[in-house]
């Protein structure tokens, strides 16, 4: 699984951090998403798929391998 984030779509809600804190964080200055792990392990896959689905800016994409 490869995670892609589009910073210019991100609205800074931090929903992804609430769902998958090991994979996502936010920048201190403007709250924009920071990808901590672009190829998360299987234990993170469910959380990442949920983060993609509930992101209120549709700013996270996935390439499932």
């Amino acid at each position: 699984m490869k995670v892609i984030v589009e910073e210019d779509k991100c609205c800074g809600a931090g929903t992804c951090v609430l769902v998958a804190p090991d994979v996502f964080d936010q920048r201190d200055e403007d709250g924009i998403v920071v990808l901590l792990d672009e190829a998360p392990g299987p234990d993170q896959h469910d959380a990442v798929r949920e983060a993609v689905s509930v992101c209120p800016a549709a700013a996270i994409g996935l390439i499932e391998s």
Partner: protein
Amino acid sequence: MTLPEIAPPTCGPPESVLVVGASAGGLTTAEALRRKGFEGRITLLGDEPHLPYDRPPLSKQVLSGAWEPARARLRPEPALRALDADLVLGDPAVALDAANRTVWTESGRVLGADEIVIATGVQARVFPGQPDLSGVHVIRTLDDAVALRTELATARRLVVVGDGVLGAEVAATGRGLGLDVTLAGPQSVPMESQFGAWAGARLGELHTEQGVTLRLGTGVRELAAEAGRVVGVLLESGEQLPADVVVVAIGGVPATGWLVGSGLTCENGVVCDAMCRAADGIYAVGDVARWRHQGLGALLRLENRTNATEQAVAVAANILGADQPYVPVPYFWTDQYDVKVMVHGLVPAGAEIEVVEGDPAARRFVALCRTDGVARGVLGWNMPKQTRLHRQRVADALALAPAG
């Protein structure tokens, strides 16, 4: 009001789910069902012809022209295909028989399913006679945003009627386009009902600084028109605001017209229990749903983006037997000029405000909003991450509240 008495599902998992409304709430319901392992048939029925798209960018990037409309799509096409759902677009549901879980569509389809999810959102409220006038716009759909953008390209004077979040965003975007903008509405400061008086006043100052003329604290009497085209807005105060284009942003009406005769209770939305169930096998999510929030002990209907998706996840789980109440911390954000404001929880009228991070003078702060010493909301101004880090205080207070 009496709430629906609904028995928890007794039989096994459903074989088919029909979702009515193919936007944030509806699409996320389908995705969450698949993620949780549902292998039965999913039908996603929408009345708009477009592939599912997102609304927050409409008043921001799409209206400003920064984004082509296609950028507002919720999912790329491969992701929609991977969902393995029947996507039926451009065909409004016109009736529901809740007892038999059957939906009829305008084109004559008859769709039955074991479980039905209502995700039809809200429609823009309008003034009587407004639809017959040219030069007057609402902004709810992609087509609305594109039509407004086209007209603004040749306009000079924009009057926005409505001092809520949509009106304030359209005013900001209009200024960004170089228009002469007036914002009119009945509250004393913009977004007072969402932000409270203190932060609303800061928002009013921001708009004034950016060159918007505020005409607040007075209602609108009527739209002034000549030969079928709007020429201005007449206020209750007697003042007339001249306009080339008028945007009416006076709130939304839940899209429940098609549910007349369905057997469901529709009063300011589809009335649901704490599990978001409107009747046996019928659920509602998103802007259209008015469910019992157990933490607040009251029926609540939220019109914001994160609620649509979080409620969708909760409903998908309940369809698959979780039987869990939906008890979210409400959240919304807005972007105006270079300012992003967000609220976790709610800001009750008259709440005590304490700045807990940053500095209002520096235009970066987090404020805690309390009533009777209890944290009800946390409002952030250009400090999204820090604001989220205070969210738990609101969540804790909600969890402590007596279940109603």
